[in-house]
């Protein structure tokens, strides 16, 4: 497969270049590894994985990212004992971020609320189907939300009023089988993202989380369309290169 599939420059896949919003990616990455409320299981206390260069132990704060192990621990508690406290922690972490994700995708606040709720409800119901071999918890949640979003847009396009219950028809397995590579993949991706320049990281974030024609972005920024296209291309090329070279 050549570049265009992963290249966003074709049409409409890139979001607003929202200049007045400070970039929060880098600090968030640096903070990865912060413990979140409950002590991580023994596994999490092991040596830092590749890609987690800086581990800072901080107190429980809402904007910090719990480790993969902590997230998996919470999800396991939901799956095995319908632990509502663990679910509330997952909800506390993911729901505000899903809200940010879906708001950027141009949904109304009522739709965002609906989709966040559907996604979190799916997390509750499908917790038992998650396997760490498939990838990180965040990847799993991202895929669920993405699929629900696709499904929602599809229904809207067909003016269907499919009951929301039917979300279960969507396949949420993060596409694939060779699970041993998943952990490696997750750390590789984080390592690569941390190496992007802030501008590239921002472009990439918008490429994922918003849908807006590149022509609209160009107008907003007052730069030629070609400039937007080439910026997106550069950011993606850099990410690809980093992913390929990552240890």
């Amino acid at each position, binding site marked *: *497969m050549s570049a265009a599939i992963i290249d966003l420059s074709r049409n409409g896949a890139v979001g607003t270049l929202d200049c007045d919003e400070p970039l929060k990616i880098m600090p968030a990455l640096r903070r990865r590894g912060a413990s979140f409320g409950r002590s991580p299981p023994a596994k999490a206390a092991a040596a830092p994985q590749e890609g987690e260069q800086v581990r800072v132990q901080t107190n429980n704060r809402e904007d910090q990212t719990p480790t993969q192990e902590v997230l998996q621990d919470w999800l396991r508690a939901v799956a095995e004992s319908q632990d509502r406290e663990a679910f509330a922690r997952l909800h506390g972490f993911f729901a505000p*971020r899903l809200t940010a994700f879906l708001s950027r995708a141009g949904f109304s606040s009522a739709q965002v609320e609906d989709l966040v709720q559907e996604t979190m409800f799916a997390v509750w119901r499908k917790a038992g189907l998650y396997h760490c071999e498939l990838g990180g918890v965040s990847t799993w949640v991202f895929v669920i939300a993405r699929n629900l979003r696709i499904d929602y847009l599809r229904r809207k396009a067909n003016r269907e009023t499919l009951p929301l219950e039917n979300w279960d028809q969507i396949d949420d397995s993060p596409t694939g089988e060779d699970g041993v590579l998943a952990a490696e993949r997750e750390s590789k991706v984080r390592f690569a993202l941390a190496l992007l320049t802030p501008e590239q990281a921002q472009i990439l974030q918008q490429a994922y989380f918003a849908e807006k024609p590149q022509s609209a972005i160009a107008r907003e920024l007052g730069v030629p369309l070609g400039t937007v296209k080439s910026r997106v291309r550069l950011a993606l090329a850099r990410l690809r290169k980093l992913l390929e070279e990552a240890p």
Partner: protein
Amino acid sequence: MRRAAGNLSAGLRLVLDAHLESCPHCRDRLRLFEAAGGALLEQLPPAPLSGASIEKIFARIDSGAVAPGRRRPAAPVRVDGLALPAALCGCAIGPWRYVHPRLRWAKVKLPDAPHERVILLKIAAGFSVPEHGHCGLELTQVLSGAFSDGRALYGPGDLAEADDEVKNHEPRVTAEGECLCLAAVEHPLRINSLIGRLFQPLMGI
């Protein structure tokens, strides 16, 4: 990447999913971009929720909504005895129509998105598809046979991409045999020759 982010049209997604079934390399790549999506999600600045959200979920759990059944897997669609990729399950394949004695096509109707421009193409050995350009992305998955577009040779399981940068595109099927492809386009093609343009309305792409 657009597949990972969920930003592809249903038709293009279908062709790409058909390709992913046969290409471990691209599946790997998709997983990588999904993982990047997960990592980016973690890093999004949290946005305030409307208050009662989690209570609503608990209320729903308590109301005892039962898990709906999984969709029954549909039987694979077959064309000329060839089982098509599982991604096409549930799609309706229209009748074969001739545009040219050596070029036939059939509409692929997606159950969820009937107006997407997706077709099966059956092209005779050695035949060249009329020269054309593209608006937006075109994806073509080779199911059997092979063709060459001057840039590369595509065989069964290969995915060919073309977009607005491909100006004059004249794919030619190899002499060895007929070629069966699944193709989707975002926007109608620009066919360069007059003859081709006359045929275009017949093809729906």
